[in-house]
């Protein structure tokens, strides 16, 4: 870290009280991992949102490229048979 670059960027994931998954809520700057968790607590759980926090250096995330959007995602657009919608669900099966 140099003065010019400042602190590295982190991405923050918070799991809410009733949530099952950690959800991306935003990003922040911190000098190290430990400080990032505390900053996340101060910035993203002020309104009683969370029970668990993950942070990861933004540089450590590998993302798909917008250039690859078509080969990546377009082919799945017309495969309706991949959706489980061709079953008749009996009336007495709840929660479906």
């Amino acid at each position: 870290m140099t003065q010019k670059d400042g602190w590295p960027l982190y991405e923050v994931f918070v799991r809410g009280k009733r949530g099952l998954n950690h959800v991306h809520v935003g990003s922040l700057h911190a000098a190290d991992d430990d400080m990032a968790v505390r900053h996340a607590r101060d910035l993203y759980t002020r309104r009683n949102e969370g029970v668990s926090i993950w942070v990861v250096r933004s540089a450590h995330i590998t993302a798909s490229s917008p250039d690859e959007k078509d080969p990546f995602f377009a082919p799945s657009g017309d495969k309706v048979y991949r959706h489980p919608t061709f079953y008749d669900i009996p009336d007495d099966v709840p929660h479906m």
Partner: protein
Amino acid sequence: MFDNAYEALNAEGDTRWAFGTGFADPLSGMDTAVPAGVDAADLAAYCLMLGDDALIMSHRLQQWCTCAPELEDEVALANIGLDLLGQARLLLARAGKADGSGRGEDELAFFRSDREFRNVRLAEVTNGDFAFCVARLLVFATWRLALMQRLVDSDDPVLAAIAAKAVKELAYHRDYAARWVVRLGDGTELSHARMRNGLDAVWSYVEELFAAHPVERRVGVDPSTVRAEFDGVLTEVLAAATLSRPEVDGLAGVSGHSGRDGVHTEAMGYLLAELQSVARAHQDATW
């Protein structure tokens, strides 16, 4: 809006943005009768002391808004200031009920002169640099946490409930401050020197924290009994921060009187002018 602060604390899925907002009367719905065996005047005076500590320290932390070295720390300091403001609201409201004067939290916060404030002088000193800020916060939170941990068993159930809430908040404040003291003390040559200066500047206000006022002895926690715990925590943090314990004499009082007696430093008048000017200029305003 909640009817009282305790409902607000326990609300599930509420959207209030910070503790200290979302309720009009901090103690509404509470049984505020002073229990038998507790002197009401002493209890009120004691709650005023603890409430003023929180109110004045909160104000100093609020002054960091737009001035903190990083945006993330600015929010952190504001959060801590808001926690303390919430404690101040409850304690001042308790004081106004217990002394029978019927004065509300706003009346106590905005319409007393400096001689009527009972906070320790540590809280009122003008903000220095960030190192001074975290050094003061470490000292303040460590001392106050030790007091509140004991006040959980107070004979007054209202004060005990306020203390139980404060303990969780202060544990975080202490942790935040300690991490920064270690980071700066055990950092670069420059950050070490700045931390050294900040700690030395704070240290002259430490003795006063442990000098018991008669009211504290009678109805609260005698602060001299938490000195060992305070020293233990500070020794551990300072060792990790590669800082030696300051060799600074305590700031003398005036004829033996200090913050708990309403005798303050010059900074207090300027602080109150800023804190109180809006409420005094617009006495019928609501917010």
